[in-house]
C-alpha cells in the first residue's frame, strides 16, 4: 500500500513541477493538464491512439522489468527495440521477398525481431557475467549503436524507392503487416503486448527462472550459495528481456509504421525504465502504467497543437518523475527526523 502511495506522490510531484514550467512559459497549467488528458483519455479516437502508443511502451517495459527483478540495470531497451525493428524490416523487405502468406511471414518476423533484440541483450549480459562490465554503461552505449545503425540504413542503402529522398525505407508488403482494426491504428500488436504481460507474469512468478531471479535479485551471493548458476541467470535475464523489447520493435513496424525511418521511437525504451519502476516491477501494473504513459504521449501532442507548448516537455515530466520515484525509494527506507542538540 505504501508503495502505491509513494508512486502516486511521485506522479504528483512531477505534475507540480510540470505546472511551474508551463507557468513560466506564460500558459495556464490547469488548462494544460486538461489538454493533456481530455482528448487522450476522454474520446474514442484519443483512447485508440493512446492504446497504440501504449504498445511499444509495454513491450519495452516488460523487457527491462525482467532484468530489474535481478537488480540488473538494463537501460538498453531502446537499442533492443530498434534492433527488433531493424530485423523485422530486413526480413519483410529483403530476406523473404517470396513469402506472401502472413501466417508464415509474421511469425518469422517476430522470431527475427526477438533474435536481434535478444542479441542486443546478450552482449551486455555476457560482458557483465564474465568480465564484470557495468551493464548500465554497455546497454546505454549499445542504444546508440542501434540508433545509428538504423540511421545509416535509412539514409543509405535502404532508402526506399519513391521516398522522395526522405530517409525512409519502402513500405512493408501486405503479408508483413499485422491485422488492423478500423482506421485509427488499432492493431493486433496491442493484443500481443498484453498477452506478453501475462506471459512475463507467469515467468517471474510461477517458474524456476522467476524464483531464481527473485533470490539472486535480493542477494547475489545467496544465489550462488543456493546452487544457482548466477552467470547463466544474468545472461538469460538480459536475453529474454532483449527478446521482448525486440518483438516490440517488430510489432511497431508491422503493426503501426510499416516502414523503418530514423527517430521512429521517441525514446520508448527510456520511458520504459520509468514505467517499470512506477509499476514496481509488477507485469500487470505495467499494463496500466504503460497505458497512462501512452496517453501522456498523445496528450503532449495535443498540447503542442492547441497551446503551442513544445511536446518535448513530456520528457522533462518523465525525468522529474523518475527522479522523485528514486527519491521515494530512499524515503521508504529511511525516516528523516529533526534532532535538536
Amino acid at each position, binding site marked *: 500500500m505504501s508503495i502505491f502511495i509513494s508512486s502516486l506522490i511521485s506522479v504528483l510531484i512531477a505534475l507540480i513541477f510540470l505546472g511551474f514550467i508551463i507557468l513560466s512559459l506564460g500558459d495556464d497549467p490547469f488548462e494544460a493538464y486538461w489538454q493533456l488528458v481530455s482528448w487522450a483519455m476522454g474520446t474514442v479516437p484519443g483512447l485508440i491512439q493512446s492504446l497504440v502508443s501504449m504498445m511499444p511502451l509495454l513491450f519495452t517495459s516488460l523487457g527491462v522489468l525482467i532484468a530489474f527483478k535481478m537488480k540488473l540495470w538494463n537501460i538498453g531497451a531502446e537499442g533492443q527495440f530498434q534492433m527488433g525493428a531493424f530485423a523485422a524490416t530486413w526480413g519483410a523487405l529483403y530476406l523473404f521477398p517470396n513469402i506472401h502468406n502472413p501466417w508464415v511471414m509474421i511469425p518469422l518476423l517476430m522470431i527475427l525481431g526477438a533474435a536481434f533484440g535478444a542479441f542486443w541483450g546478450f552482449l551486455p549480459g555476457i560482458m557483465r557475467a564474465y568480465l564484470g562490465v557495468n551493464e548500465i554503461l554497455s546497454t546505454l552505449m549499445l542504444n546508440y549503436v542501434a540508433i545509428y545503425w538504423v540511421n545509416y540504413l535509412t539514409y543509405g542503402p535502404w532508402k526506399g524507392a519513391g521516398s522522395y529522398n526522405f530517409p525512409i525505407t519502402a513500405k512493408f508488403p501486405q503479408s508483413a503487416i499485422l491485422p488492423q482494426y478500423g482506421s485509427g491504428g488499432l492493431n493486433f500488436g496491442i493484443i500481443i503486448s498484453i498477452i506478453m504481460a501475462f506471459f512475463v507474469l507467469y515467468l517471474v512468478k510461477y*517458474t524456476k527462472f522467476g524464483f531464481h531471479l527473485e533470490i539472486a535479485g535480493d542477494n547475489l551471493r545467496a544465489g550462488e*550459495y543456493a546452487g544457482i548458476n548466477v552467470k547463466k541467470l544474468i545472461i538469460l535475464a538480459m536475453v529474454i528481456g532483449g527478446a521482448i523489447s525486440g518483438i516490440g520493435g517488430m510489432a511497431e513496424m508491422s503493426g503501426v509504421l510499416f516502414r523503418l525511418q530514423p527517430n521512429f521511437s521517441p525514446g520508448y525504451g527510456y520511458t520504459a525504465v520509468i514505467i517499470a519502476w512506477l509499476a514496481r516491477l509488477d507485469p500487470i501494473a505495467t499494463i496500466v502504467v504503460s497505458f497512462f504513459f501512452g496517453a501522456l504521449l498523445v496528450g503532449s501532442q495535443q498540447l503542442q497543437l492547441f497551446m503551442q507548448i513544445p511536446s518535448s516537455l513530456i520528457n522533462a515530466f518523465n525525468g522529474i518523475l523518475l527522479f522523485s520515484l528514486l527519491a521515494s525509494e530512499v524515503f521508504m527506507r529511511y525516516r528523516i527526523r529533526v534532532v535538536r542538540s
Partner: protein
Amino acid sequence: MSEKILELKNISKSFSNLIANDSVDFDLKKGEIHALLGENGAGKTTLMNILYGIYKPDAGEIFLDGKKIVISSPRDAIENGIGMIQQHFSLVPSFSVVQNVALGLKEMGIIPDLSKIRKKIIELSDRYKISVEPDAKIWQLSAGEQQRVEIIKLLYVKSKIMILDEPTAILTPQEAKGLFETIKEMTANEASVIFISHKLKEVLEISDRVTVLRHGRVIGTVETKGTNENDLARMMVGRDVVLKTDKKPSHPSKPILEIENIHVMGDKGIEAVRGVSLEVRGGEILGIAGVEGNGQRELGEAIYGLRNYTGNIFINGSKVRPGDVLERIKNHVAYIPQDRKADALCGGLPVYKNLFMKAFSSPIFSFNPYFFYPEKLREPSEKVVKEFSIAASSVDQEVKFLSGGNMQKVVLAREIKSHPKLIIAVHPTRGLDVGAEEFVYNVLLAQKEKGTAILLIAGDLYEIFNLSDRVGVLYEGQIIGYSEPDESHIEEIGLMMAGVKK
C-alpha cells in the same frame, strides 16, 4: 579504589520498537576493571556507544567525576578522557603505526611532528610492555598487533576510561593473556577499564566487578571474587544453563570428506589456504581451530564450491569439481557460512522462500520448474518454523527483520532438512545468545549421531571442545597440527594457533 569516576544513571535507548537499554545504571571506580557481561543483543554495545557519543540516549544522565556531562560525539568523549576500542578497528591500513596515532591527535597541526610522536609511542610501549613496531604499516600487522596499536592510541591521549568491546575475540589464548597483563598495567596507572564480553571465563579472570545485562536491563552488579561461572550464566540467561554439552562417544564410519593438498586464493590475491589435506568421516566432528583470518573462510568456501582451488576434494568417494556449488548440494553437502546474512539468506524475501531457497538444487525436492507455486511452500514452512522454534511473526515475515539467532535457525533448518551427509559449519554460533547456542549444539550433535560428517570451523575454543572429536589447528593457511578437544590441551592448541609447531 572506591572513588567513582563515572556514573551512568537511568540510561534508556530504543530503536523503533526494540528496547536496547531500559533505565540502565552503571558506575566505574578509579583503577577498576568493570566487566559488562551479557548475551549478544543484551545491549552492552549500545550502552557503551552511548557513553562514547555514537548514540544519543532517549533518557538518562552521565556523570564524570561527579559532574553531569553531555556527550554528543566521540570527539566529546575523547576530550573527556573516554576512549573506546571497537570490535572493528578504526585504523588506516596503508599508514604506519605512528601515522595512525598522529591521525587522532588534536594538536597535530598541518605538518605533524612525527618524530616526537614516534618517541612517545616507544616510551609508552616500554612502560606498558606493549610491543609495537612504530614504523610498521597496519596491513602488515596481525589482528592482535593492531589491537595493541589501538591501545597505544588511547594511552597516547591519556584516556582515563577505556572501553574494550569484546577484545579477545580475535586473539589466541596467549595473546589474550598478554592483553590482560596490559590491562592490569593500565589500571595500576590510574586508568579504569570497562571490559565488554560474553565469555564467562575471561570475565572471571580479569575483572574486579561484573555487571550483567539481559534484554537491555541490568540484572545485577556483583564482585567478581564472590561469584562463579554458574551464577553468572544464570544471571545472563535467566535460567540454569548446561555449559558442558553431553558429548556421546562417536562411531566414525567411512570417510565422507577427503581433501588432498588444496590451495585457495584469498580476496586480496594472496594464497589463503596453502596445502591443506584432511579427512572427515561419517559420524564425527572435526574441529578446526585458529585465529580468525588464517584461511578459515576460504577453506569453507572452497569445500562448498564457492571459491576456486587447486588440489582434490572427494565427497563420498567421488571427486568434485572446483567452483561447482550445485554438485555439492546434489551430493548432500550442507553449508553454514560465517556471514549468514550476506552469504546464505535473502533478507528482503519472506521466511518461507528462504527455507526453500534450494528448491531447484537440492535432491530432496522435485518441483516442476515450469509450474512452480511458491504459495505452496507456506504450509511445509510453517511446520519447519514450529519444529525449529523460529521466532517469526509468520512465514511471510522478511528475514531481515529476524534476530541473528532466528536467522541462524532459518539457515540451520534449511540445511538440516536437506538430509546432509556432510555439514560444513563456519562459526555457527557467532552472534548467538546462549540459548540459541545450545540449540545449534544440540542440532549438530544430533546430526553427528545420525552419521553425518561435520567439519566445524570455529574461533571459540570452548565451542570446539564442546562439540568435536578431533581438533586441527589452522595457521596461515596450513593445518599445523592436531590435538585432543580437551581443556587440558589448551596450552598446546594455543601455541599452535600462534604458529608454534609441536
